[in-house]
């Protein structure tokens, strides 16, 4: 039977196991939406802005591990997706974004609502496709999903002209996919792995440095097994949080600009750095020349371009992180001493690290009445489900969440690390909630970033998405204010929000519940009440306005040059 392009697209999504999509209609996708009207196998959620739709699909993908799908119309709909796509690209999130396009005959004519979205998204997608013939549609969709989810994952755009949605052809979904220019390396080189393990066993002061690749590669269990087997301490990037339980004694927490004192000291003093699924971002390394100056570096990553991009590497291993970790563990079992023996061998190193932990633990000064933002984060952890999913926005609250929440499971922290996109948190939480209707999902955001996508309260209420919204309200663009305090003589240029917003009324206007805490002894009550109410709740915490995120390594300084909490 012949089907039209719009229907074929939906059939492809179904065959890829897609159950939820986020999209916004318009002229060039009206045919697609017409098919969707009677297509009941896929849940469609209408955000209130295409950027939020893409962030929601992204949050869905980060939380579930599946490919996130978003739809937008041509022109302004498509250009509205760019920030969302770039956010996903920087964090390697598997997504397929479908954009409508003007009819093929009009492409290039400056037609109404035409934008060259293939040209615009080329540098912020893993790949993109313009579908010119309905006969190619099924194959392109198969390729799009394959590319999005394999190797180093990433967003793929499929641009679908209106006439292609209308044209009909026989539908057959290809069983296999063959792209001769795309063969992601999955298996690490056995000799390299052997060499790496041998070097790791020789090290006296090893540290494991983990990035988001371990979460994307579903390799947390293998990481935990290897680290514990060898007794090697683990520090993670923002994107790696949750891959290794922070309540384990081997955990050093976050490293880098706002990392812990002991993580940064350990990395700066180690003789062996094992980087797994991480890319040596400048927020992590500080000044490159003095990063891990005494260390041999082993680097495991699925993307060869990540290796030796900005630091020298002694033992590169290109491959799927899980595959490599499994093989490493096997070799350790063959040639190494038992776990106790390994622990013994590193006893003086762990003692040195314990000394740093004692000297400068993660801490903040509690106040008598004012709410400290760090305290709210700690109470959120204490009063939420162990498997709760936490999305964050970008700013101080994001760093406090990273420092004080204590993540213990992968895919429980959803945060825009690479692009640092304000406005990401609320829609991402919405997407995660759609993926896990039965789990607790909260977003921790600042008063600034919340306002960048607060229209999504409507989507959340309309779709009965049980999202708990936590606003740490300092009435400042706090992170920028902190930089102005430290590096610009407290010249708070355009970082004070001035207009106090009644967030409670705002929540109520959308049909959500609003709660507020202004004093420290109200914090628990608000959190408990917020979590106990079924349905969306906005919890506003008026926090200490000029609190700083510490420790802090100033941009461009070495990791050892930390400004510490007094």
């Amino acid at each position, binding site marked *: 039977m012949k089907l039209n392009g719009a229907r074929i697209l939906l059939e492809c999504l179904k065959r890829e196991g897609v159950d939820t999509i986020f999209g916004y209609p318009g002229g060039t996708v009206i045919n697609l939406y017409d098919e969707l009207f009677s297509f009941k196998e896929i849940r469609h959620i209408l955000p209130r802005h295409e950027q939020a739709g893409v962030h929601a699909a992204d949050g869905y993908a980060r939380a579930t591990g599946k490919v996130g799908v978003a739809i937008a119309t041509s022109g302004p709909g498509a250009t509205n997706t760019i920030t969302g796509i770039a956010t996903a690209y920087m964090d390697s999130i598997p997504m397929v974004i479908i954009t409508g396009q003007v009819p093929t005959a009009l492409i290039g004519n400056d037609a109404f609502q035409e934008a060259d979205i*293939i*040209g615009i998204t*080329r*540098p912020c997608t*893993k*790949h993109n496709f*313009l579908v010119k013939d309905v006969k190619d549609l099924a194959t392109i969709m198969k390729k799009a999903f394959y*590319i999005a989810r394999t190797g180093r994952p990433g967003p793929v755009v499929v641009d679908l002209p209106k006439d292609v949605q209308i044209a009909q052809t026989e539908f057959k979904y290809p069983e296999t996919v063959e*792209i*001769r*220019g*795309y063969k992601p390396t999955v298996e690490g080189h056995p000799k390299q792995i052997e060499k790496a393990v041998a070097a790791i066993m020789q090290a006296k002061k090893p540290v494991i440095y983990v990035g988001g690749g371990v979460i994307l590669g579903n390799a947390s269990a293998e990481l935990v097994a290897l680290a514990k087997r060898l007794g090697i301490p683990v520090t993670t990037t923002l994107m790696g949080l949750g891959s290794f339980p922070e309540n384990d004694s081997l955990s050093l927490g976050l490293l880098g600009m706002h990392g812990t004192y002991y993580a940064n000291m350990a990395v700066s003093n180690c003789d062996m750095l094992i980087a797994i699924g991480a890319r040596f971002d400048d927020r992590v390394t500080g000044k490159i020349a003095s990063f891990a100056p005494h260390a041999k570096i082993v680097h495991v990553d699925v*993307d*060869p*371009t990540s290796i*030796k*991009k900005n630091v020298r590497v002694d033992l590169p291993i290109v491959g799927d992180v899980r595959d490599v970790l499994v093989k490493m563990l096997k070799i350790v079992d063959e040639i190494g001493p038992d776990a106790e023996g390994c622990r013994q061998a590193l006893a003086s190193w762990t003692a040195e690290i314990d000394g740093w932990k004692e000297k400068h633990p993660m801490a903040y000064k509690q106040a008598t009445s004012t709410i400290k933002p760090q305290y709210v984060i700690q109470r959120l952890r204490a009063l939420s489900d162990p498997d709760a999913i936490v999305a964050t926005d970008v700013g101080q609250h994001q760093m406090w969440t990273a420092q004080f929440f204590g993540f213990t499971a992968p895919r429980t922290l959803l945060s825009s690390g690479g692009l640092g996109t304000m406005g990401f948190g609320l829609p991402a939480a919405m997407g995660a909630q759609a993926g896990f209707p039965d789990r607790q999902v909260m977003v921790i955001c600042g008063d600034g970033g919340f306002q960048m996508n607060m229209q999504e309260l409507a989507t959340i209420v309309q779709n009965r998405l049980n999202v708990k919204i936590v606003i740490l309200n300092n009435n400042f663009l706090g992170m920028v204010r902190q930089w102005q305090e430290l590096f610009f003589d407290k010249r708070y240029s355009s970082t004070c929000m001035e207009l106090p917003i009644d967030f409670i009324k705002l929540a109520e206007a959308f049909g959500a519940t609003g709660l507020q805490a202004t004093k420290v002894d109200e914090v628990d009550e608000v959190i408990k009440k917020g979590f106990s109410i079924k349905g969306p709740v906005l919890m506003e915490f008026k926090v200490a306005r000029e609190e700083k995120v510490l420790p802090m390594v100033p941009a461009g300084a070495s990791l050892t040059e930390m400004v510490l909490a007094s």
Partner: protein
Amino acid sequence: MKHTIAVLVENEFGVLSRVVGLFSGRGFNIDSLTVAPTNDEALSRITLVTRGDEQIIEQITKQLNKLIDVIKVIDFEAENAIEREMVLVKVAAEDQSRAEVLRIADIFRAKVIDVTPKSYTLEATGTPAKVGAMIELLRPLGLKELVSTGPVVIGRGAKGWKG
């Protein structure tokens, strides 16, 4: 260091802009670039000349390989490759310099492809070094216009290079 890199790509719409966009987006240099279909119609071959230290060249070849439409990348080593470029050059040639232009053309086995009372237009092919040497000799006589294909490169030996 100068490197001549050959890139075999899908002969598809937009591929060249992916390659060029990679260079501009990441701040890599392109000294020259040529592209045309190959004996296999489904493939095009790009030859580009770029500069950088070892680490940059490694990044360039890795990043090129990462593009989905790129099938193969070879950073040719001079001793295993033959490199040629073609130039068309319009030289001022009046009175006393007319003979000199022809003499230089003869030495470099360039062809005269257009003549006017005031100029010669020459066609020359050869290694970039040879063509460059000819240009330098012609320059003092008055170069009116110079156009070059940029180098193309092919491996030595019997083995062909396919997708």
